[in-house]
């Protein structure tokens, strides 16, 4: 699942006419015409979603999530003139995020290998403490459930995780996810099915406990 070189020029499977109202695309076009306020609104609307996607994919321990949000928008600025309304704006934006995620994952893996090589210095298990980022009023039992959910998502393979997260938390269709990660609808459907099976098997005991 390697993304194509230029998301701004890559043909998208979902046509613009399929998208009834896409505020992101409208803002992007307005910004291209010189409306700086439109860019401000884009950042306001989408920075949180980009942060959430990075958090769910890279994990809450990752220290560079906010830097990567900034990097995403810097890339958006550089690709401003090449953008054409051919799909939902968020699909295009998530393509940039996905590429950053790949780079970051590879960098983290090589860093991890290096730290394992030098295990005598820092110790192999050196990691930042996990930040739960939970509401202090969330009960202990609920906190355990949330921790388990996060662990289950984090344990998914990269391609299953990104597909599942985009589908469940960002409401992207199979076709849109396929555009983001450079795959086919069928492959995405299969990835999401497998991811959900894995999650169901792991989280089943919580269903009764939570009694949702």
């Amino acid at each position, binding site marked *: 699942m390697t993304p194509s070189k230029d998301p701004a020029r890559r043909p998208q499977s979902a046509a613009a006419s399929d998208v009834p109202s896409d505020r992101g695309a409208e803002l992007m076009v307005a910004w291209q015409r010189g409306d700086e306020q439109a*860019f*401000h609104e884009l*950042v*306001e609307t989408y*920075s*949180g979603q980009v*942060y*959430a996607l990075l*958090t*769910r994919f890279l994990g809450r321990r990752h220290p560079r999530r*906010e830097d990567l*949000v*900034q990097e995403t*928008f*810097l890339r958006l*600025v550089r690709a401003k003139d090449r953008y054409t309304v051919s799909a939902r704006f968020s699909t295009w934006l998530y393509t940039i995020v996905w590429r950053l995620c790949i780079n970051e994952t590879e960098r983290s893996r090589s860093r991890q290998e290096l730290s394992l090589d030098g295990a005598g210095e820092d110790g192999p298990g050196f990691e930042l403490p996990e930040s739960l*980022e939970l509401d202090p009023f969330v009960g202990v039992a*609920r906190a355990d*459930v*949330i921790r388990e*959910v*996060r662990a289950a*998502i984090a344990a998914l393979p990269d391609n299953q995780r990104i597909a599942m997260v985009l589908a*469940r*938390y960002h409401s992207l269709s199979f076709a849109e996810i396929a555009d983001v990660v450079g795959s086919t609808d069928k492959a995405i459907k299969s990835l999401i099915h497998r991811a*959900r099976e894995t*999650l*169901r098997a792991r*989280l*089943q005991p*919580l*269903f009764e406990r*939570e009694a*949702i």
Partner: protein
Amino acid sequence: MTPRPEQDPGAPRAPRNELDQWLGLDPDPRLPDVVRQRIHEQLAAEDDRMLDAVLGLDVVDRPVDLADRVRAAVRADARRRRFRPVGWVAVAAAASLLLAASMGWNPRGRSAESAGGSAGGAVAALDGPSAELLAALPLLESLEFLEQELDPFEQEVALLVDPGDAVFLELLELGG
């Protein structure tokens, strides 16, 4: 027609056993396949709903002022990119200055030497002793002689005497 259970004609009749055998012919009640399929689908849908509900508990809060920091980063990057060409011009200017300085170094030194050392200064001194230094050499030799031959008081007197004090020198010579 269901077949009757086989009976041994010679065996004593056991009404209870016979009844059990008759009842054993009744098959277990089974749901129709369509109904079973529907139940499986409903259970799977319920599982999906539960899974989605549990996944929905994981909420990511946006950090405070994230959008402001993103906008600030974009502005800073734009400024950097605007000044990048100016930076290159500055680097090019500095490089050409360095080049000019390195080319001008040797000719100036040589010209100072050829001009008799009057304008060379410190740069000319690196190329060799200046004419002034060469002219001062006899005096330095005299000073060395004075240090070796005279006592400190005589040295002081000798250094104070101006070569123009001819009368005084004559007197000194007559007195010595």
